């Protein structure tokens, strides 16, 4: 592997190469194995995120396949330049150049490691997970303004959206093409009747029971009103109503049959959310995905992790 030529190893070159691409500074200093290990780690760790998209959502998956690999990647980015600099400082002034000590190889490795995250980030956002920052209280008390959520974009992994699912969807162009988050209340063919605060789906009224105030004490700052448990299609989730029933304009009465390949969605903050009551049913093609995780919660970290009703 040696070329028979000698050359001094500049520590600042090792540092700069490692900043550009983890592991390349080590290769410059002749530590090919360690360099390739660090370099490969930067390539392989982000791929765990793709595996996570196919796993059953859980806190272990969020930590083990998404957050810890992300943290390790940052640690490698910080560790690699420091270690490469130290190795270059200790290198002999008559360091014997190896066959792989070529500028063209360094630049190739750097270019690949700089281009890779762009392609991978695009791919993950398009096909695995997309992160969203929730800017409004439309889904209080389940999602607060400032929550950052991961939306699983595997298209219809469990078939079409089901009643009770929380989905992120594209709004019609009349609403400036934003993305909203809401809960599926009715699916294709369902008869949804809304009279004030009461909701009936296929003639069955959604039952509610009051949630004790102290159980939502940690998020009280963003939850103004009365919280109830609502039961629908075998699921039980919390919904919020304003203290003053006339506080916001909930539409008086709606009766709609959900069209084919569409869903009827309502925000959990019933008196304030904008949803299908205002923009009509949502075509399933406009559904971007399902909320799997709250990875950066607002207000309290007790809400961190997999989202469950």
């Amino acid at each position, binding site marked *: 592997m040696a070329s028979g030529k000698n*050359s001094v190893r*500049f520590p*600042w*070159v090792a*540092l*700069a*190469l490692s*900043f*550009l*691409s983890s592991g390349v500074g080590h290769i410059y200093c002749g530590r090919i194995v360690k360099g390739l290990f660090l370099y490969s780690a930067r390539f392989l760790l982000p791929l765990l995120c793709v595996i996570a998209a196919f796993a059953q959502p859980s806190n272990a998956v969020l930590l083990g396949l998404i957050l810890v690999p*992300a943290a390790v990647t*940052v640690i490698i*980015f910080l560790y690699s330049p420091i270690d490469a600099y130290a190795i270059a400082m200790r290198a002999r002034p008559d360091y014997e150049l190896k066959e792989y000590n070529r*500028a063209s190889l360094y630049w190739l490795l750097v270019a690949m*490691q*700089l281009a*890779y*995250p*762009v392609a991978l*980030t695009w791919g*993950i*956002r398009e096909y695995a997970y*997309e*992160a*969203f*920052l929730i800017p409004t209280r439309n889904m209080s008390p389940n999602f607060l303004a400032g929550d*950052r959520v991961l939306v699983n974009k595997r298209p219809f992994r469990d078939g079409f959206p089901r009643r009770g699912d929380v989905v992120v969807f594209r709004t019609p162009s009349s609403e400036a093409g934003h993305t909203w988050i809401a809960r599926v209340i009715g699916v294709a063919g369902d008869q949804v009747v809304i009279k004030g605060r009461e909701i009936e789906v296929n003639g069955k009224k959604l039952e509610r029971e009051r949630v004790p105030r102290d159980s939502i004490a940690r998020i009280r700052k963003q939850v103004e009103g009365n919280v109830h448990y609502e039961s629908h299609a075998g699921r039980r989730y919390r919904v919020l109503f304003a203290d003053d029933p006339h506080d916001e304009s909930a539409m008086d009465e709606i009766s709609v049959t959900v069209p084919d390949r569409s869903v009827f969605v309502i925000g959990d903050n019933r008196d304030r959310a904008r949803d299908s009551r205002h923009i009509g049913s949502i075509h399933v093609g406009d559904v971007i995905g399902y909320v799997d995780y709250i*990875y*950066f919660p607002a207000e309290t970290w007790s809400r961190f992790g997999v989202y469950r009703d």
Partner: protein
Amino acid sequence: MADEPMYDEWIANRRAASPSRELTDRVMAAVEERCGQRESYVHLADRMNASRPARWAACLASLLVGSLPFLLVAYAAELLVF
């Protein structure tokens, strides 16, 4: 080998010949030319190594460029909002 005496005679003559005055110049010119053929990045590294600001600038620029993927991921994760 049959031609070994011929070779020995030839090499003896070559050794006996005194080098021309131009030989040193030609050797030095060849060395200089060889040095000139060294890859340009080595020259650049040599020059930058002599200048502390250049070294700092190179490292900071590398840090900036190397951080771009992390900024991209932070942006995609909605941790950075422009």
